[in-house]
């Protein structure tokens, strides 16, 4: 399992190459890549702050829960921090499992967590200045889909 933060732009394809190699019993690899949107010029840059150490540890706990819950063989998460230009990848999640349903659901679950609850603070730099972003109602609603009853 791997949970990492990076200040540098990254290629999600290079991560998938590495993650999918040599898996003769895995069967299914799902990935998600989140890309910074330009919003037709409304956002000129995104800035993400993390708490190094704490952020990876919190994400790691949720990744462990996903592994157990969905029976994953492996998980990899890479998250950008710092200034991110439109078109650059912000987050990459890969999940490996024997069957595709588990791989898809775990990837979806991890993204819902990362987008709404993970320890990041997000600032959008637009033409009218910068503003701190808080999670949307949709992000919270997405996360309630995974509550275990």
């Amino acid at each position: 399992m791997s949970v990492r933060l990076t200040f540098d732009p990254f290629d999600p394809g290079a991560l998938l190459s590495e993650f999918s190699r040599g898996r003769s019993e895995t069967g299914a690899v799902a990935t998600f890549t989140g890309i910074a949107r330009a919003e037709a010029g409304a956002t000129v840059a995104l800035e993400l702050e993390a708490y190094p150490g704490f952020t990876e540890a919190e994400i790691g706990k949720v990744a462990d829960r996903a592994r157990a819950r969905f029976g994953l063989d492996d998980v990899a998460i890479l998250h950008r921090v710092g200034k991110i230009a439109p078109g650059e990848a912000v987050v990459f999640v890969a999940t490996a499992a024997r069957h595709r349903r588990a791989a898809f659901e775990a990837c979806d679950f991890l993204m819902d967590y990362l987008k709404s609850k993970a320890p990041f603070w997000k600032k959008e730099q637009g033409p009218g200045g910068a503003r701190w972003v808080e999670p949307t109602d949709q992000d919270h609603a997405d996360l309630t889909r995974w509550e275990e009853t």
Partner: protein
Amino acid sequence: MARVLLFGRLSDVAGWRERQVDSPFLSALRAELSGEDAALGEALAGKGVQVALDQVIVRGDAALNAGTEVAFLPPMSGG
């Protein structure tokens, strides 16, 4: 001396991200920071702001040792 870290909008309010503060308790540290900067004191007491001591979230008051890392975390926005 505790090492105080501010994240997200809190560091914008304060104008700093990291400082050493000499306080024996978290409550005393809050009072100290509020006394210097009322706007920051209010922001630190704001809705959804959590505190981590050496990277563990705590609630209520706590003793601070020399070198304790005290992080003030506004609501996390996700990535």
